[in-house]
């Protein structure tokens, strides 16, 4: 809801994302806070934030495929893995990172197209099954390829990014690097909804039979939804590879895919704001559980407790979100904002 006195005179005005000067000021404050954050935080928290930014990139991709186009994708982590392995391989050829990241994204996109092709015949959860196949097949293929290609069971080391004379290695470097990348992807994710392709995807999500009748090329839109979602995943994979400087199959599991989906659902599938809120909420919940599990372990619990606790917490969060608030935290946020704007009058 907009405050009184904000009028749109043109369509472009109406379609703007930041419509009031107050919104722009808040955004500027957020950017300044994120830029200044490393001055106050230790390397551990910088690592947490870097991880959060990379996760957010992957979840933006899911927002496109699942939230906008309505196609369930349970293989986002495998696609992130494809991006990471592509980056590891390409960085070995002394290619500049500005070229490696888009190439890795494109490779991931083309891999995803193969698994989106059954969209020609099936829809709904059947399509989810092909992405499940992608997720299960990914480690099998990587492990079966010759070791000198993609490292097999051992994994591959990644050449670090060199910018001029600087080699990226410290946590603060990666913090700023991923912050810039995630800022670019945020702009892309927020603007996609306003494009012709974005509207086509939303039409397909709401009712694909009607969309077809209206002249939206449904099959092409579905395949492109997977392609675009995987571009985001590929960039996330490239950042993961550069951040960890080593990639193995073991990091890209079905569980990670479920985590990404869970974050999106808890945040709200229908807006990029949901992706941001969900990723932040689940990441900080996980950090809290981490601290809790550490105290448990000091009193003699076993090491698997952390994994079990986080699984239970995330599973519980997804179920609670699905049952009680399918529109996610993003909807709660807009309700709170409207209430604040209308106060002292009741919201209805």
């Amino acid at each position, binding site marked *: 809801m907009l405050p009184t006195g904000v009028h749109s005179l043109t369509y472009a005005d109406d379609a703007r994302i930041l419509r009031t000067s107050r919104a722009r000021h808040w955004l500027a404050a957020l950017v300044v806070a994120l830029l200044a954050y490393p001055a106050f935080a230790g390397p551990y928290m910088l690592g947490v934030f870097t991880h959060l930014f990379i996760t957010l990139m992957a979840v933006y991709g899911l927002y496109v495929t699942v939230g906008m186009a309505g196609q369930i994708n349970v293989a986002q982590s495998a696609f992130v893995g494809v991006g990471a392995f592509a980056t590891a391989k390409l960085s070995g050829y002394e290619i500049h990172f500005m070229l490696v990241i888009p190439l890795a994204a494109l490779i991931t996109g083309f891999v995803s197209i193969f698994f989106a092709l*059954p969209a020609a015949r099936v829809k709904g959860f059947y399509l989810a099954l092909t992405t499940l196949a992608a997720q299960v*097949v990914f480690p099998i293929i990587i492990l*079966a390829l010759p070791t000198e290609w993609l490292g097999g069971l051992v994994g591959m080391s990644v050449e670090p990014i060199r910018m001029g004379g600087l080699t990226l290695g410290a946590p603060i470097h990666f913090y700023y690097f991923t912050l810039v990348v995630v800022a670019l992807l945020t702009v892309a994710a927020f603007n996609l909804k306003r494009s012709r392709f974005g509207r086509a995807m939303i039409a397909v999500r709401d009712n694909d039979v009607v969309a077809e009748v209206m002249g939206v090329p449904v099959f092409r839109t579905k395949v492109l939804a997977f392609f675009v979602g995987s571009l985001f995943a590929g960039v996330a994979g490239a950042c993961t590879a550069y951040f960890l400087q080593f990639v193995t199959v073991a990091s890209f599991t079905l*569980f990670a895919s479920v985590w990404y989906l869970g974050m999106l659902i808890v945040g709200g599938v229908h807006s990029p704001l949901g992706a941001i809120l969900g990723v932040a909420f689940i990441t900080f919940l996980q950090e809290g559980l981490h601290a809790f599990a550490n105290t448990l372990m000091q009193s003699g619990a076993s090491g698997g*407790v952390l994994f079990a606790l986080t699984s239970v917490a995330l599973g519980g969060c997804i179920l609670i979100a699905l*049952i009680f608030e399918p529109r996610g935290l993003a909807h709660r946020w807009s309700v709170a904002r409207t209430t604040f704007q209308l106060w002292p009058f009741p919201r209805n």
Partner: protein
Amino acid sequence: MINLVQILIEGALIGLVYGLVAISFVVIYRASRIVNLAQGEILVVGALVLWTFTLGTAQAGYHIPFVVSIALTVGACILFGLALERFVFRPLISQPAFSIFMASVALLILLRGLAQLIWGAETRSFPAIFMEGGFTVGPFLINTRLFLGGVCTLLLAFGLHAFFTRTRQGLRLAAVAENHDIALSLGISVRWAIAVAWILGTVVATCGAVVLLSGRIISLDVATIGFKALPVALLGGLESIRGAPLAGIVIGIGEVLAMAYLDPLTKGAASGLLPYAVMIAVLLVRPQGFFGWKRIERL
């Protein structure tokens, strides 16, 4: 030649185990229109419950007669099914398919985490319910455990098929599998259908665990069988219970043939990839599988 036939026999028997797990998957879909990705976890939970009432209580010093353990396990499965219906799926009745699918995904990680919290991550031995070893038919060696399991699978498949197509209750479930809203408007209790679906699914999954694990080692990783059963269920047709064992045999034989002839060339990848390659091929060529329902959409 004898070697080949031996391989085919083994493939068919392993395939029937996949078929049994696929039946537990199909039963839930056929009675409640819920695609349950967490079937592997359900199987593990069923197996752990059975372990608790047999070897677990024996370790604690209480020796329960075997029949009572089975009855306790079935009782626990029924409670589990009712709890899932009440707390997870009742609020989701006639919600979009996406919500229900995601609920099953959430269940997958929730159950995995709970199993680890309650039973711990260590491996344990599963009670030997079927006799071990094998018997010979002519020149061929047949594994007794898998053979008895296969017989159970076929009996269950035909029994459940009769239930779903011949009894009044079973036909009501068919309406729920078609569409929740229409079923509700015809006066069919979708809640009841979902409870029945989960109780049947859990019991059948526990049977699958018995056949798969009898006398062997149980760990949380056994749950991956759930993802192997998915291509089987899809190939047989998600609505067809009798299709599941047949598809299981097809995939089981394909898998052992790939294991015998292609794996040496591909570092063991061919047999792992085969079920999923079949799955994608099925989705591209005949999405309803062998005997599934073909859905027609209207505006």
